[in-house]
């Protein structure tokens, strides 16, 4: 059986078919979380943002003008929510003296201490990259998206995506190397 396209699932959602929401969540929630992580730099917050953004997209599904581009539309909602979160946290930091930096804040519980340390190092290195490069790197090297898919979701030329990925990897290797020394 062929898998339904996003466009078909959006049409089902508009008819109130709830199973379509589950299929879309299973298909896109990881990418939502990756984009939220790229913008916020915080794993726990990224999960909250991904969930909130997905629910918001379902609530506003009638506003999705190009159902065949549902994924790009959804990720834009994620980006906006994550940016709002970062801005709110920054504002709060100016008001409070004991707020910890956004990156590495409230790490997820991780039974594996070595993995927790590695995750923190990766997040710290990621924080040094420009936002778009973080997003490209996470979507490609973590989520396994193709260059063309990233280009479509980010509305960038494929060549630019390749260039961002190249520079992001180089910068990450350098940062991680420096951390080891």
């Amino acid at each position, binding site marked *: 059986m062929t898998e339904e396209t996003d466009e078909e699932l959006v049409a089902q*959602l508009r008819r*109130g078919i*709830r199973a379509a*929401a*589950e299929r879309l*969540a*299973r298909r896109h*929630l*990881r990418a939502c*979380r990756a984009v939220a*992580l790229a913008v916020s730099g915080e*794993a726990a917050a990224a*999960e909250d943002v*991904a*969930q909130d953004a*997905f*629910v918001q997209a*379902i*609530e506003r*599904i009638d506003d999705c003008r190009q159902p065949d581009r549902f994924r790009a539309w959804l990720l834009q909602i994620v980006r906006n929510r994550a940016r709002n979160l970062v801005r709110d946290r920054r504002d709060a930091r100016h008001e409070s003296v004991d707020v910890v930096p956004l990156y590495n804040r409230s790490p*997820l519980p*991780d039974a594996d201490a070595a*993995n927790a340390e*590695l*995750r923190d190092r*990766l*997040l710290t290195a990621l924080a040094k990259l420009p936002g778009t490069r973080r997003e490209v*790197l*996470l979507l*490609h*090297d*973590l989520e396994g998206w193709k260059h063309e898919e990233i280009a479509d979701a980010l509305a960038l030329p494929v060549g630019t995506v*390749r260039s961002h*990925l*190249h520079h992001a*990897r*180089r910068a*990450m*290797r350098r940062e991680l190397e420096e951390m080891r020394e």
Partner: protein
Amino acid sequence: MSEIDERPIDLSALDPERDAGRWDALVAATVARADAALAARSRSALDTIAGWSRPLLLAAALLVALLVPAEMLLDARERRAEQVQRLVTISVDWSRGDAPTGSELARALTPGARP
């Protein structure tokens, strides 16, 4: 320009499904919230229809309330007019020497009787 870096960075430490139980719980919670949002959406559509139907029903009831007495009034007038018409016809015929029978006279004097 230097060679394109084709080697992926190992980001598996950031993979949300390293803790599969936690990730499944997040997906389930997201689906539950999406379900609730969809239910609220369809409720709101029904409310919109209800919002339209309520005044429409009220207007229809008002129309019926006005039309029924009007119809009854017109019907009564019509019956009276028919009765007068029958009496006039009988009187004219009688004056010409064509005397009505008892039953014709009774019908003409009975309101609502068919000619």
